[in-house]
């Protein structure tokens, strides 16, 4: 067995880490990016592309330089440590996963994404589909050999700034059927957009389509397979992001416990507090292990991939709550303030459990995939 990273990946980790740190120096710098018109820094996005960060998220088969589970985890752990708000998840993971998993992969579009010239968002979530892969109300019909799409997609990450959107829509059947789903590529200039920021500082959008013309990318079994793979890749990326955040939360808390004095000694000197830190440390090791396992089986069969990703994302949901709440509680009032970075890490950590399946969803999926 070997649990160490290869030399190339260590280098990737080091280079990208330095690059993120030099741009995301502190929480004020992040707030600046959040408050830009697009909700992120286009400049930083372009520089990330130039440095090969986006390319590292895509397999060489489709023009990238990475794209393995380990690559995704390395990059997203660093995304978490810096709380980057750029479209790494929406465009570089979700959309490129769909575009590379369809029967006729669209290397042209993937190349544009990698080069930082094209932003594509994946619009699958709806107000009522919670975290489901197949529950879809948005519909598509064929008229004069053209696909027309009607409906509203919710929580579309970076859905305001993207020039193209990949939309899941129902071609036939009932909203809850696993068959009859299609994936379409549409131009975003004809959609009705309602952008907003999420409570943890990320740009999201409601997108409404009215008889919007779309290009069919995949349908039926292939479409559902692509949606599941994209959502699984997203859940893996978010799990790694959460791991990065947890490590920062732990370090900030430990620092504070050494500095802050109460009753004449540092708070960290109290055993009851030390035990809580040990609990946190232990659970972070568990998450790290689950993320490593999920990363290593990302390219195996779908069942193993999804089972291990569900295990990781379920654990991330549960441990994330522990770490976020303990980080605030052990700091006391200071971690309730906007000015201090711990509050922002805690918010993101909690809200990760509201994206691509929460701990309950992934527990249920784990049970299903394990034939309980």
């Amino acid at each position, binding site marked *: 067995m070997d649990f160490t990273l290869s030399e190339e990946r260590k280098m990737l980790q080091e280079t990208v880490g330095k690059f993120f740190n030099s741009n995301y120096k502190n929480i004020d710098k992040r707030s600046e990016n959040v408050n830009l018109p697009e909700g992120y820094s286009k400049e930083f996005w372009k520089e990330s592309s130039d440095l090969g960060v986006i390319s590292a998220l895509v397999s060489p088969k489709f023009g990238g330089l990475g794209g393995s589970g380990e690559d995704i985890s390395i990059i997203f752990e660093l995304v978490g440590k810096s709380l980057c708000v750029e479209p790494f998840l929406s465009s570089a993971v979700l959309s490129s996963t769909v575009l590379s998993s369809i029967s006729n992969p669209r290397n042209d579009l993937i190349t544009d994404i990698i080069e930082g010239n094209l932003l594509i968002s994946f619009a699958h*979530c709806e*107000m009522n589909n919670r975290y489901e892969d197949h529950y879809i109300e948005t519909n598509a019909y064929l008229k004069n050999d053209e696909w027309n799409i009607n409906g509203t997609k919710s929580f579309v990450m970076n859905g305001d700034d993207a020039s193209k959107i990949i939309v899941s829509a129902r071609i036939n059947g009932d909203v809850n059927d696993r068959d009859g789903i299609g994936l379409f590529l549409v131009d975003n200039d004809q959609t009705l957009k309602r952008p*907003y920021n999420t409570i*943890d500082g990320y740009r999201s959008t409601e997108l409404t389509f009215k008889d919007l013309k779309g290009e069919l990318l995949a349908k039926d079994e292939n479409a559902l397979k692509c949606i599941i793979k994209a959502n699984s890749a997203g859940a893996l990326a978010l799990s790694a992001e959460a791991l990065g955040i947890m490590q920062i939360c732990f370090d900030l808390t430990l620092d504070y416990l050494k500095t802050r004095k109460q009753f004449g000694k540092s708070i960290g000197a109290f055993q009851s507090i030390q035990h809580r830190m040990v609990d946190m440390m232990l659970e972070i090791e568990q998450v790290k292990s689950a993320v490593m396992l999920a990363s290593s089986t990302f390219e195996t069969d779908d069942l193993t991939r999804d089972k291990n990703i569900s295990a990781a994302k379920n654990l991330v949901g549960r441990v994330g709550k522990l770490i976020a709440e303990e980080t605030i*509680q052990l700091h006391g009032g200071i971690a309730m303030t906007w000015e201090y970075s711990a509050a922002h890490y805690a918010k993101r950590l*909690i809200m990760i*459990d509201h994206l691509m399946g929460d701990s309950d969803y992934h527990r249920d999926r784990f049970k299903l995939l394990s034939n309980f």
Partner: protein
Amino acid sequence: MVIKMNFEYSKKDENFRKEVKDWLDETLPKSLSEKVKKYQRLTKEDYEIFMNNLTAKGWLAWHWPKKHGGTGWNAIEKHIFEEEIIKASAPRIVPFGVNMLGPVLIEFGTEEQKNYYLPRILSNEDWWAQGYSEPGAGSDLASLKTTAVDKGDHYLVNGQKTWTTLGHHADKIFCLVKTDLNAKPQLGISFLLIDMDTPGVEVKPIITLDGEHEVNEVWFTNVKVPKKNIVGKENEGWTYAKYLLTFERTGIAGVPYSKSALNHLKMISKRSLKNGKPLIEDPIFSSEIAELEIDLLAMEIFNLRTVSAAAEGKAPGMESSLLKIKGTLVRQKTTELLRKALGPQALPYLPEQFDEGWNEMPVGPSYAGPIAKQYFNMRKISIYGGSNEIQKNIVAKASFGL
């Protein structure tokens, strides 16, 4: 000896409840309770409307004895009153003057102080703030650093207070200050009344993690405070501070808040869909709600046992600390399940929706907007008023004989 326990309120108590409820129905403006229900930002005037109504009714000083203009209610009546105002979605009674300082002045103030300050509290003329916590002294209040040096006819105050709730509205602040720098912690502390208009007092906002401004820093730079503004004896402020904290503890379990949050949770769980079916039909999620309700049910009885004992004159001891711990955990659990019930609908955050008169379409169902914000905001309740860790220290030290 009690043979059979009675869990019911007396006829007299029920009549009192009806009186409070009817009065609220009649006098609380609908626009104001709507704002509270929607978690919209309350202005200084919003608080004052409700508190002036209470003044007119003679119910503002609900912790004071009758002879000073209070209600003279017993613990059960206070409990009923508090339950009804929360149920009616009234703004909270800003506690600093009427619930905190008032009782201290009544017990320890000079006649001159009582005659001057108490009527001004009763009429809402003065808005008080609490100057206890400091950057290095929160739950361990005794290690405070703000100093007041005796300069003959006045004290010269220097230092910084923090977490001053609604301090940006305040005219006056009561502070714990160090008057004997050589004394051990808890000794050498005095209780001082300071006018916020005095030169050298500066209020700076603290923005909390939900982007809101409710708490402040208050800075004192060479602030001259007349000697007559000291309450009680010099260097004995700790005694008064502890006395005041017992008043902060009433209703500490927050049972009525958790009850209304639980109802809200059930409503949302019926409307939220999981696989096209109401979330409340999910056996695991509904079990979580059931266990929360069981915790709350037991806690309500625990709380009533304490209230009932207090009505008979038994001062609550460890119960206050235990109820604070359990009460905050239950309340935080309701906010957690609420956000979980929403799923991705908890993500959108429109800060402008908390402004008065906001009339646009929300993103998602109208109840979704405040839920995540409320979850994060409620992290504070296990920190303030003596953190849960400190409550555990108090209980362990006083109860176990270890």
